[in-house]
């Protein structure tokens, strides 16, 4: 508990005291200035530090002492005195040592994810899903999990800047007032505001108010990961813009047209849950997924049949499919190959056989025509209203971002714009290259930037105003289904930032209106004054406003299209470039988050870099191998990228991820990978043909955490088809897995009465979305180590997601397997520890006592699952004060030289046990939820007491699919897996359908 009460106060006081973007001081510095400065130099940038650095004098002497065999006396000095600092006035409902949970919402890609955020004495430390919220349903995604780290990011901008100089909010406001005043006359002809998607009702209202004040001004929305094509598509199909809301739980057959609905759509968390709910336990109700994809995605990995295709050809497939499901389409003069046709026929047959119980989903990055066809098919198949409904767009203005940005930069070029205000967007970095936004931006005589970081745009702006993190301000937003969700602060702004609403109200010329009031006032307008407080409190408590789900709109899609509406692309020539948001830093806005940077991107397991992803065939053809640096020339620009060879990538296309090649916006963000926006054009932002690829002869080592992709015929992941399962439900536990019946040990069994903690991981449910990895990292203070260390396989994640490719190398099956400490009852790691630092609790936990560990690494060597992690250096950042504030006080921050590993979140077990003991009862099933379990959108992880026959975990362990990893070693793991069962179409070639021939 030490210092906690004080820490916040002290830190904030320091922050207040600070002027300018330099480091604010920390307690250590007050303690020892010199040492601290050298530390800053070496330790910074945190998370990716050069760990190979000297220890301070004290440790050095201690170590020398040790080497001089004097260390026995180390214990012979008095313990240093520490201060303990209470509050001055007790804070309501804060009990020191007890965390509190507050409901709030996190905006991802313009849509709100409901959260419950854990707070220790006023420090938000951990994010959990809000079970009541429609887009969360209790789960989260990796971005939400990592968002709490961004709050404490020491690189966040800390002061108002005027031409790079430190200034003040009031000076800025006066300046802004003048500028706007001069625009009044012209009704704001020269004023442009550029913001992200306006899904916050309050902000939208403020925007409208602003436009009312300046009728000739424009408020432009731009998100580099936009939904323009969807909108154009629905306009094409319905004549108006609507957002589709899917119900995967109602669909028996799902066809994805290059759509990654399990991960990257608004609502994906909910969709994943719905989709998996139909296949987590194999049986009659099991659904089937056909995925057509232009680059490997999680959705493809989860599919029963995958067809690789170039992105441009997806339209051809879509049309052909539509034709077979009763939509009239213009004829295509380049017919599909027989194999493709065979695949399509099977799909079409399945769809037609399940009218009203199937679903066709088009991908965000696909052309309007594909979306239109998808809508048409869903109508033709009678899915509209059952598996998919349509609502008026969540982004009320439903503007076309690219188009708008294009106009804006044109206006900039022509000098029409006199005052450009960018609100929480970074166009200089992430505008498509052909717009040359960077160049035109400078033409605006007044440039104002608002945001969390001093990013590329901020550096070129006259004014920069620091923004607030969503855990620092009041706001509101709408979820994918329209639900109005509440955003409330858990902590006062760390760096004296302004909330977007406060900034907006400054635009409206209102002096210092508090963000809270602005939001409250908006809702007062909606609800009226009568018992507003109760409504407001209820909304804040729930995290969203009950009954604000948008009503389904009664729209009907066209049943046919003419050649003007659907123009088939010319047969692709040369290579195709696929541009997608990065799986972990997305559009680049998370580039300074060390958790996400070090998170192994699914399928590639890359960290700290992006790459040009190509197929083994192409690699062979071009004589390329992993780490080779190539020059990519496409559309507007040229970049140099390192090659990553990924089985399953279509042979004629190269996939690149956005979000890298930053030049500003934080020490971690800078100078990593390459900037894929340089290849993006406003005409073809998601994929374009005619990519030219040239070998440079250079190489750049990519840090991927898994370099071996084959399972080597070891039955680590056991899987079968629904057919096999119905023939032999126990196919996963065939004889050779347990060669020896009975107990092969010469020793008697250790009796486990009372609680016996265990876990089941359902491989049918796991989609490999990485949410658990980040959740574990934030719950257990798992440090990041930086690229150099990852290259030497020293990453620290307590839970990792292994992925293996099997079958056809060109179009393999991709399987995920989360691996964490198995808490073996006969743990091989324990008997080999010479100091007894790792032992077994009588509840079956494999315990790691860090403070006893001397670091022989023997336990890790002897762990067949290799889940133990070693602190080769002082990985935990002990210097950056804000990062200390993020840490979970219930978990030890490990020092250098000790081993660590998954603890089954023992801190949660212990608090549950204590509460139960105080109430003289047993711990109930569900009282203990591990961090990975609670984050999982598909409930693939189930934890509990296996001695309690009624517990969920015990029931799952009884299933025939249940098997243990490497049980032949007689480790008796407490973690077991449910074998994977796929549901392929018997009429198609089993597994992943026909191998692609490429074009």
């Amino acid at each position, binding site marked *: 508990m030490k210092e906690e009460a004080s820490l916040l106060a002290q830190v904030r006081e320091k922050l207040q005291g600070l002027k300018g973007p330099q480091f604010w001081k920390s307690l250590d510095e007050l303690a020892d200035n010199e040492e601290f400065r050298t530390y800053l130099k070496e330790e910074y940038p945190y998370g990716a530090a050069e760990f190979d650095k000297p220890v301070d004098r004290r440790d050095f002497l201690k170590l020398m002492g040790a080497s001089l065999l004097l260390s026995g006396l180390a214990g012979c000095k008095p313990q240093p005195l520490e201060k303990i600092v209470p509050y001055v006035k007790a804070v309501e409902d804060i009990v020191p040592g007890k965390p509190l949970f507050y409901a709030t919402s996190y905006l991802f890609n313009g849509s709100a994810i409901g959260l419950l955020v854990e707070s220790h004495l006023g420090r938000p430390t951990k994010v959990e899903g809000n079970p009541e919220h429609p887009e969360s349903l209790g789960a989260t995604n990796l971005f939400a999990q990592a968002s709490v780290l961004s709050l404490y990011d020491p690189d966040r901008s800390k002061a108002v800047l005027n031409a790079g100089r430190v200034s003040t909010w009031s000076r800025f406001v006066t300046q802004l007032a003048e500028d706007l005043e001069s625009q009044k006359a012209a009704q704001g002809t020269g004023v442009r505001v550029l913001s992200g998607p306006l899904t916050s009702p309050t902000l939208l209202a403020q925007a409208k108010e602003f436009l009312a004040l300046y009728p000739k001004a424009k408020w432009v929305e731009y998100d580099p990961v936009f939904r323009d094509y969807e909108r154009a598509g629905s306009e094409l199909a319905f004549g108006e813009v609507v957002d589709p809301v899917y119900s995967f739980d109602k669909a028996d057959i799902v066809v994805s047209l290059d759509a990654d609905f399990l991960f990257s759509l608004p609502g994906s968390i909910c969709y994943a849950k719905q989709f998996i709910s139909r296949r987590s336990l194999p049986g009659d109700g099991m659904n089937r997924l056909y995925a057509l994809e232009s680059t490997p995605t999680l959705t493809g990995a989860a599919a029963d049949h995958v067809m690789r295709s170039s992105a441009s050809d997806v339209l051809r497939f879509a049309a052909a499919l539509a034709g077979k499901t009763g939509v009239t389409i213009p004829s295509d003069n380049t017919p599909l190959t027989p194999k493709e046709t065979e695949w399509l026929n099977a799909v079409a047959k399945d769809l037609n056989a399940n009218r009203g119980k199937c679903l066709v989903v088009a991908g965000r990055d696909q052309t309007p025509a594909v979306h239109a066809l998808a809508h048409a098919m869903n109508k033709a198949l009678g899915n509209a209203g059952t598996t998919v409904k349509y609502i008026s767009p969540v982004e009320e203005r439903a503007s076309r971002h690219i188009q708008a940005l294009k106009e804006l930069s044109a206006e900039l070029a022509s000098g029409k714009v006199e005052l450009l205000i960018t609100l929480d967007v970074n166009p200089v970095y992430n505008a498509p290259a052909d717009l040359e936004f960077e160049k035109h931006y400078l033409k605006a005589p007044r440039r104002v930037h608002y945001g969390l970081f001093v990013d590329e745009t901020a550096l070129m702006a006259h004014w920069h105003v620091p923004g607030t993190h969503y855990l620092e301000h009041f706001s509101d937003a709408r979820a994918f289904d329209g639900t109005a969700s509440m955003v409330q602060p858990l902590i006062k702004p760390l760096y004296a930032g302004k909330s977007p609403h406060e900034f907006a109200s400054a635009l409206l010329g209102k002096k210092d209106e508090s963000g809270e009031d602005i939001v409250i006032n908006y809702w007062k307008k909606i609800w009226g004054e009568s018992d507003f407080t109760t409504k407001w409190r209820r909304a804040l408590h729930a995290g969203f406003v009950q009954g604000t789900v948008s009503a389904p709109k009664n729209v009907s899609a066209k049943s046919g299209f003419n050649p003007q509406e659907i123009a088939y692309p010319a047969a692709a020539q040369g290579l195709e470039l696929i541009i997608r948001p990065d799986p972990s830093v997305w559009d680049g806005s998370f580039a300074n988050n060390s958790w996400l940077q070090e998170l192994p991107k699914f399928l590639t397991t890359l960290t700290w870099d992006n790459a040009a992803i190509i197929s083994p065939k192409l690699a062979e053809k071009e004589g390329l191998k992993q780490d080779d640096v190539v020059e990519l020339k496409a559309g507007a620009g040229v970049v140099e990228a390192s090659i990553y060879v990924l089985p399953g990538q279509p042979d004629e296309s190269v996939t690149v991820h956005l979000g890298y090649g930053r030049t500003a916006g934080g020490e971690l963000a800078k100078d990593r990978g390459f900037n894929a926006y340089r290849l993006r054009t406003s005409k073809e932002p998601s994929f374009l043909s005619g990519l030219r690829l040239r070998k440079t002869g250079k190489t750049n080592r990519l840090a991927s955490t898994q370099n071996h992709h084959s399972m080597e015929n070891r039955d680590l992941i056991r899987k079968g088809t629904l057919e096999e399962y119905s023939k032999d439900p126990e196919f996963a536990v065939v004889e050779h897995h347990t060669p020896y019946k009975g107990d092969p040990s010469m020793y008697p069994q250790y009796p486990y009465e009372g609680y016996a903690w265990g876990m089941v991981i359902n491989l049918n449910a796991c989609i490999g979305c990485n949410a658990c990895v980040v959740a574990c990292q934030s719950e257990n203070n798992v440090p990041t180590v930086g690229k150099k260390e990852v290259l030497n396989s020293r990453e620290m994640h307590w839970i990792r997601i292994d992925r293996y490719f099997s079958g056809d190398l060109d179009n393999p099956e991709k399987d995920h397997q989360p691996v964490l400490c198995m808490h073996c009852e006969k743990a091989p790691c324990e008997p*080999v520890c010479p*100091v007894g630092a790792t032992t077994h609790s009588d509840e079956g936990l494999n315990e790691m006592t860090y403070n006893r560990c001397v670091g022989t690494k*023997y336990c890790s060597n002897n762990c067949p699952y290799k889940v133990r992690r070693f602190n080769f250096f002082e990985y935990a950042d002990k210097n950056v004060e804000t990062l200390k504030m993020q840490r979970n006080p219930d978990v030890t921050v490990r020092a250098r030289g000790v081993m660590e590993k998954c603890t089954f979140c023992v801190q949660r077990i212990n608090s549950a046990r204590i509460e139960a003991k105080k109430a003289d009862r047993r711990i109930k099933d569900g009282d203990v939820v591990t961090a990975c379990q609670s984050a999982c959108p598909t409930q693939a992880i189930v934890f509990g007491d296996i001695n309690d026959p009624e517990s969920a975990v015990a029931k799952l362990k009884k299933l025939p699919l249940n098997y243990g990893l490497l049980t032949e070693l007689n480790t008796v793991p407490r973690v077991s897996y449910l074998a994977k069962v796929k549901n392929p179409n018997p009429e198609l070639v089993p597994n992943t359908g026909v191998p692609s021939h490429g074009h």
Partner: protein
Amino acid sequence: MATKHIKKSQKETDESILGGDHTYGSVNEKISSIVLTKEFKPVWLFGFAVALTLFLVLQISVGRLFTHYIGIWGINVPVGWGFDIINFVWWIGIGHAGTLISAILLLFKQQWRTSINRFAEAMTLFAVACAALFPILHLGRPEKFYWLFPYPSTFGVWPQFRSPLEWDVFAVSTYATVSALFWYVGLVPDLAALRDRTKHQGLKVLYGVLCLGWRGSARHWFRYETAYLLLAGLGTPLVLSVHSIIGLDFATSIVPGWHATIFPPYFVAGAIFAGFAMVITLAVPLRKIYHLEDFITMKHLDNMAKVMLATGMLVGYGYAMEAFMAFYSGNNYEIAMMKNRLIGHFAPFYWALIVCNLLAPQILWSKKARGNLVILYIVAMFVNVGMWLERYIIIVTSLARDFIPSSWHDYAPTIWDWGIFLGTFGLFFTLFFLFIRFVPMISVFEMQELVHKKKHGH
């Protein structure tokens, strides 16, 4: 008839293990003078300088390790042990020849041990000193090494005696202590000899103190011989146990490539193999530089070569069994591991090892080769390298490719790994050079005994 024959052969060996025409006095003269002379041989000075330099490298590397933490090494997860443990096992192994010569050969009444046992024992001590560094250095928190010893701590917890590493703690410290005792006990009468020989008053006092006032009393000799014999009797099982336990470090684990019942005996054989190679490496130059051809005769080298050949074959058998069991077991992981060594990307190391340890010694079948110092020396060098490679193969290749392919990763030593490895040579030779200069490197009284026996042929 038979007895006669035995007597005859006995005689032969006696002659051939002590050349020249030596008296009690001349033996003493010859050996003590090396210690008591004032002048330093240039060769010695040069060697000592080199050794000191390498020793400095060790100090720097260790300093770096303590200030920058263990991450400066190349180890990682999965390969948690690298040069540290390789060197540990290698050095400990080398030590074994010393104890073997002084203890086992004594029990077997092999008189040819006499002239080489003293410096072989010294070699043991210094090799163990080098080896003993690593159990401490390889810790993530070396300053906490004393937690490995059972002492009443304020935590109220104790070491975990099921761990082979804990066994090591006892084995190695016992081994070091007993070897030191053995060595010192053997030294006492010779120190007395030096005491009586030197003219320098200071040295007289020094040796006088060190020899505990030894006066060659019959009563003393009586107990002395018993004790010495007992020590030999204890040292023999000890030396076998020590490397068996080192072998158990690996055998008790479940790592494919470690989990092999054959390890203890095969490690012991390997140790003796490596040890004799090192003794030859040291003996050949020594007898040249200090003109000890009379004491360290070709017969000695021939015998050692034979032992080397024999143990080499044992080790070879070990390799064969390892491979055979791997495939015979039908165990997926074991087979994969073996394939990795035979034809996988660790093959170069493995075959280099086979060449060094199995093929190279075969030349020793020929008497000529055994009689040729150059060849003998080269073979010994091969074996030194080969035995190091063997530990590299066992430790690194097994860890780098174990059960779950997702966590496979290779190992590359850093400059600091090398620094510490080379540094230990510095430590070893620094001590060794001091030893040959300031301590009689051949047991005087035992040589005198030998002279006596030679005289009376019994």
